[in-house]
Structures are given as structure tokens and as C-alpha cells.
């Protein structure tokens, strides 16, 4: 695969994040989940492309989705749930779409759908421990900003989201701004999932609105629902901003 492709670069950085989590947990068998999720995503992507009678192409996006799912889904879940989440993710990528692009962030769709069906929370296990006090882990966690924020110029999504989220958490929940801003899960979400190019706006003004909307929606959802607020807010934002590219 082309190493200059941002999706390939993102995949490698995500694998690095996953690897750091395996190192932190001291359980090398966790790599099994990475392999299963990624292979499942590629399988289902190829399957659905065949069904759509589209020529197969290098599965860079599917690999990225698979790695994200392995980061999000608890390693204690049955393997079949990981496989099914990859199936739903690729279903969303291939079939829930408009003319040129899919509507929902595939990994978010797969994770939330599976959590609803099997009644478990999205874990974020591999993006939860990387506080500033563990600087190496932290730097690995935020390395995707080199791709999403700098290379793909998505800073107008990420930065407004982080500021809006942190401010709202302070005002509504009395959580210190820096605790929210540097929360590992929130950072991973803001740097990897939120600015996904296919499902986030391209225009600067709309990007900022998208980021602020998702932050606000996440806080509201967290107050009234027991579903993962970040994932649900992202999918809601994907839907509402779909036409506004």
C-alpha cells in the first residue's frame, strides 16, 4: 500500500496506539483482536464490494476501521461480536450512502450497533490510560494529529470540538477544563474519529459548526441516555451535516 496515502499512515499510527495498549496491559494475546477485527473488516468490505459489483481496491479504509474497532471494543467480548461490528461498519460504508460517499463514520456505526444489539458499552480500552503523566503513551495517542489535523487540515473540527466539550464539561459537570481537554478517550475521538474525511465537512466554517455540534450533542446525550455519548453524537452529526459538505 502507498505509504504516502493518509489512510495508510493513519492505519500505522493506530496500530502503534493499539500496540502501546497491549504493552500497557502486558497481554500479547490482545493482538488477536487486532487481527480479527482488521481481517473481518477487509473481508466484509470485499464481500460488499462484490455484491455491489464494484472492482476491488486496496482496503486501506477497511483496515483503518478494523484497527479502530479493536481499540474501541473491549478485549473481553466474544470474538463474534468483534466480527459482527466489522460487518456492520462495512455495511454502513458500502450501503448507507448518498451519491459519492457514505453517511456515517463506519467504525462508530459498527461499534454503536453492536453495543445496542449485545447490550454492552463501547469500551475505548486502548484509548483511556494515556494521561500526560505517561508522556510516551500520551505522545503515541496523539500522533494521529499529524495526519488528521495537519496533513488533512481538519483542525477546524478538532479544536472547536475540544474547546466546546471542555467548556461544557466545566460549566455543566464542574470538571476541570484540562481534565476534559486531555482526556485520552476524548483526544482519540477528536483526532481520529471526528475528523474522518469522508463523513466530516470540508468547508472551514462548517467544520467548526460540526465540531461544536458534536461536543454539545455528546454532553446532552450523556445526561439523558446510557448509550456512548461520543459515538452517538458523532453519528448524529454525520447525519445532520451530510448535505452540508
Amino acid at each position, binding site marked *: 500500500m502507498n505509504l504516502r496515502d493518509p489512510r495508510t499512515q493513519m492505519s500505522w499510527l493506530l496500530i502503534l496506539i493499539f500496540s502501546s495498549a497491549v504493552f500497557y496491559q502486558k497481554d500479547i494475546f490482545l493482538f488477536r483482536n487486532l487481527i480479527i477485527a482488521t481481517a473481518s473488516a477487509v473481508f466484509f468490505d470485499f464481500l460488499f464490494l462484490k455484491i455491489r459489483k464494484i472492482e476491488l481496491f486496496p482496503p486501506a479504509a477497511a483496515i483503518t476501521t478494523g484497527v479502530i474497532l479493536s481499540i474501541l471494543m473491549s478485549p473481553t467480548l466474544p470474538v463474534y461480536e468483534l466480527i459482527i461490528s466489522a460487518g456492520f461498519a462495512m455495511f454502513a460504508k458500502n450501503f448507507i450512502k448518498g451519491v459519492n460517499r457514505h453517511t456515517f463514520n463506519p467504525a462508530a456505526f459498527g461499534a454503536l450497533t453492536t453495543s445496542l444489539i449485545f447490550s454492552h458499552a463501547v469500551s475505548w480500552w486502548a484509548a483511556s490510560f494515556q494521561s500526560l503523566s505517561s508522556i510516551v503513551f500520551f505522545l503515541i495517542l496523539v500522533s494521529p494529529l499529524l495526519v488528521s489535523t495537519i496533513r488533512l487540515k481538519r483542525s477546524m473540527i478538532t479544536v472547536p470540538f475540544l474547546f466546546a466539550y471542555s467548556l*461544557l464539561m466545566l460549566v455543566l459537570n464542574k470538571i476541570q477544563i484540562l481534565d476534559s481537554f486531555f482526556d485520552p478517550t476524548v483526544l482519540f475521538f477528536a483526532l481520529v474519529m471526528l475528523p474522518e474525511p469522508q463523513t466530516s465537512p470540508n468547508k472551514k466554517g462548517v467544520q467548526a459548526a460540526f465540531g461544536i455540534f458534536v461536543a454539545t450533542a455528546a454532553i446532552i446525550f450523556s445526561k439523558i441516555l446510557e448509550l456512548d455519548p461520543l459515538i452517538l453524537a458523532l453519528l448524529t452529526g454525520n447525519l445532520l451535516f451530510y448535505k452540508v459538505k
Partner: protein
Amino acid sequence: MNKYLTIGAGVLVLAVIGWALFNNNATNKVQVSPTPSAVASPSAQPEAKEAKVNLTKAGFEPGALKIKVGTKVTWMNKSGATATVNSDPHPTHTLWPFLNLGKFEDGSSVSATFDSAGTYTYHNHLNPSQTGTVVVE
């Protein structure tokens, strides 16, 4: 169009903040003892009930606990690493703020008293796949 969307998003944020400022955010009564050693609840009844949950490498044990109203639950960290007890959902921890007991080191404990009936779910923020439920009757 872009300008209006940005303004709209900003108005939405202000509306939410305004709603929060003019509302009492009612939560369960907080009986939190986030210090490393177990601390008795300030409003403990003379015959207050107690229950224990151990956090090991495998997770919270028992994962599902059933108790009576007024019971104090103590979480003991035996996982070998720093852990937390935090309300669901991750990472906002907003459903039951009284369960945001903060970090506790290996060998230490945190406690909370459940004064209202209901089902409460929590997790270890540093390893969110470790989850638990307390059913209060």
C-alpha cells in the same frame, strides 16, 4: 450558509449552558469517600449496611451487586495498578456523579453510599472494559 451554521452552533452551546445555569442538576445524595482509606459515610445509620467489591486484574468482583437502600459499598483495589471508579457513560461520567470516586492506588479503597433505589453502572476510567453494576432495592 457556513456563517449561519457556525452562529447556530454557538447559540446551541449558549442555550445548553443557560439551561444548566437555570436548572438544579439533581443527583443522588453524595456520600463519597475518595481518599485511599475507607471512610464512614457522614450520614451513616447506626446499623448501616456495608458491601464490598474487589477490583482485580480480571475486573470488578462481583460485577453485579444487589444491595438495600442506605448500603455503603467499598471498592478495594487489588489489581496491581491505579484504578478509578467512575459513573457511566465513559468518558463523561455524567449519569451518577456521586459515583465519580476518582483514582485509588493498588491496595487502597474508595466508598460510596447508595441512598436511592435504582440500577447504577460504573467502570474503571483507566480500563473502561472493567465495568460493574449496583442494583439498589
